[in-house]
């Protein structure tokens, strides 16, 4: 079907619109959201198979030919990311049933979650730089609502900061697109890439590359632009936090990955070096902050920042190994951050405290919860059979083969900090005499643990079957290394005027 790749955007959109009609009827809302999320997941898996068998899929919206209309492009990278997004959304919606509360559910929580997915999937799929901006806004508007929904004091305070930062960065995005348009005269990403290779103005393009790095760095939280993230992600309840931590920053990283491989490869000595340095500082600062706090939410939040640094380091290294590693690590990190936020949410639900020194012995009463937490911490740190290993080892080997000894070692060292920061939580919170975690008879966590188990299993199998995943990821990286594949798929053989 010609419109297959648009279905992951359309299904949540239609679901969101229908959900608006059922504001009061919470049961109907839950069913529609689940059906839509499951449908989105099924469609995106079909999409992966289609892209794998038939190459990059494109659709020219409104039947306007490639550089003139909006083109949606689904290569393997975006298909994989869309699938991960759909899986995470499904699990977060399942988790919301017990944890989000009637009041939020009856004030448009589920429609807004669906709109968030529209934005994220759209940003992953679009082939037009201004359309990407629009999908960024769809995503951000929904995230503003999700951040403030419920209206507690901390949420109101943090959403003001969050909205201010994001409005500024969106304005910068528009300015950057305007500059780009005035130089190359087109908005289609494949066509931009072609034109950039033709126009002989490396200096202004390098400026643009840095401007885009600032824009996407603000969305994706790299040093020195991550100042807004710890507060903003601390405020909302667990399922919303999981959606934010797993999806929002990763869209920024995807955009850096896309623009730095498709557009700005003419002066890698400056731009990619800058990206490498910034991401190393991000990793170091994130590591310091992750071990500085005793608050579980804060620890996981700073682990997001470390992971962002690791992925962008791989993009900065810009060789086949490092890019493969980045893609591996990007998908792994989406899954595992969703797991961790949901787990932290569940622990807070049981113990009523975000400080891990306030309780202990959780594993006596909640063994399954304890072992899921243990496995996901190991996966996050990158212990071999689990999912974080392949990505990180490839990024490190990419760093070494580029000759960047210090950088690669910093990436390796950061794993220790990651492991230490969360293993502390495991040792203090789960071991020892049960205190502050006494089993409350009315507290049944089975249905809340279920989505977590799904995500943990998919994360484990992502690591164990990485050889099998590698088929897909190799195909994704081919496009990143060689932009002509992308350009040919979008523009065809017809030479654009």
């Amino acid at each position, binding site marked *: *079907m*010609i*419109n297959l790749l*648009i279905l992951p955007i*359309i299904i949540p*959109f*239609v679901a969101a*619109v*229908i959900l*608006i*009609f059922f*504001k009061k009827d919470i049961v109907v809302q839950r069913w529609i959201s689940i059906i839509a999320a499951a449908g989105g997941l099924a469609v995106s898996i079909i999409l992966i198979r289609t892209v794998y068998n038939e190459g990059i899929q494109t*659709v*020219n*919206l*409104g*039947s306007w030919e490639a550089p003139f209309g909006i083109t949606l492009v689904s290569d393997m990278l975006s298909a994989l990311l869309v699938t991960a997004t759909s899986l995470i959304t499904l699990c977060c919606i399942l988790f919301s049933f017990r944890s989000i509360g009637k009041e939020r559910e009856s004030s448009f929580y589920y429609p807004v979650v669906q709109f968030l997915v529209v934005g994220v999937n759209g940003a992953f799929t679009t082939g037009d730089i201004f359309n990407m901006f629009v999908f960024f806004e769809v995503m951000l508007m929904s995230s503003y609502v999700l951040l403030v929904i419920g209206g507690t004091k901390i949420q109101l305070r943090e959403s003001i900061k969050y909205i201010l930062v994001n409005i500024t960065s969106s304005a910068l995005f528009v300015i950057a697109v305007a500059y780009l348009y005035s130089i190359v005269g087109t908005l289609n990403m494949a066509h931009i890439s072609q034109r950039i290779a033709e126009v002989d103005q490396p200096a202004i393009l390098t400026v643009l590359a840095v401007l885009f790095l600032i824009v996407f760095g603000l969305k994706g939280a790299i040093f020195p632009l991550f100042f807004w993230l710890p507060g903003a992600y601390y405020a909302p309840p667990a399922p919303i936090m999981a959606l934010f931590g797993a999806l929002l920053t990763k869209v920024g990283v995807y955009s850096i990955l896309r623009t730095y491989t498709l557009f700005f490869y003419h002066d890698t000595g400056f731009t990619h070096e800058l990206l490498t340095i910034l991401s190393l500082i991000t990793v170091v600062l994130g590591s310091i902050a992750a071990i500085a706090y005793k608050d579980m939410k804060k620890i996981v939040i700073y682990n997001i920042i470390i992971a962002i640094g690791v992925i962008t380091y791989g993009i900065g290294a810009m060789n086949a190994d490092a890019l493969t590693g980045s893609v591996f690590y990007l998908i792994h990190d989406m899954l595992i951050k969703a797991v961790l936020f949901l787990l932290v949410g569940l622990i807070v639900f049981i113990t009523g405290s975000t400080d891990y020194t306030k309780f202990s012995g959780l594993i006596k009463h909640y063994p399954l919860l304890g072992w899921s937490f243990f496995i996901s911490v190991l996966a996050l740190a990158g212990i071999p059979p689990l999912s974080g290993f392949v990505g990180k080892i490839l990024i490190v080997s990419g760093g070494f083969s580029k000759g960047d000894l210090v950088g690669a070692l910093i990436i390796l060292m950061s794993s220790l900090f990651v492991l230490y920061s969360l293993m502390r939580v495991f040792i203090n919170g789960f071991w020892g005499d049960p205190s502050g975690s006494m089993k409350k008879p009315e507290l049944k966590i089975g249905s809340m643990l279920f989505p977590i188990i799904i995500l943990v299993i998919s994360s484990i199998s992502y690591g164990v079957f990485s050889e099998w995943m590698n088929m897909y990821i190799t195909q994704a990286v081919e496009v990143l290394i060689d932009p002509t594949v992308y350009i040919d798929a979008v523009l065809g053989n017809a030479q654009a005027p």
Partner: protein
Amino acid sequence: MKTNDIILQTVTKIVSFIILMFALHIFFAGHNNPGGGFVGGLLTSGAIVLLLLAYDIKTVANSLPIDFKITVAVGLLFAVGTGLGSFLFDVPFLTHAFGELTIPILGELHLNTAVLFDIGVYLAVVGSTMTIIQTIGEGE
């Protein structure tokens, strides 16, 4: 002391209809002249806001018994529906169709499915503007 705003209310009765007509004109002119769903929607909500100024929220809600949040959803359905039509004909999403249609009283018309999309924009704009204004107006 209750002020007597009979002049305002009388003028509003006439002017709001003129504004509504102008909004419709702007809406349908959109294809060939400046205008379209967005301005048309804003003008329509301008007319309703004038009613809100001259009367009060309850009176307007009684004479226009519309839940504007639903209006937004209906508008979005229109917009996405014109796109989904393309699934039936197996052409790329949002491909618009047009043609000459002969309708008994109006004669031959050049009709375009882009108008349906524009109706969606119109409804969404009216709905969101009115939702904002009514919510702020009702808030204590």
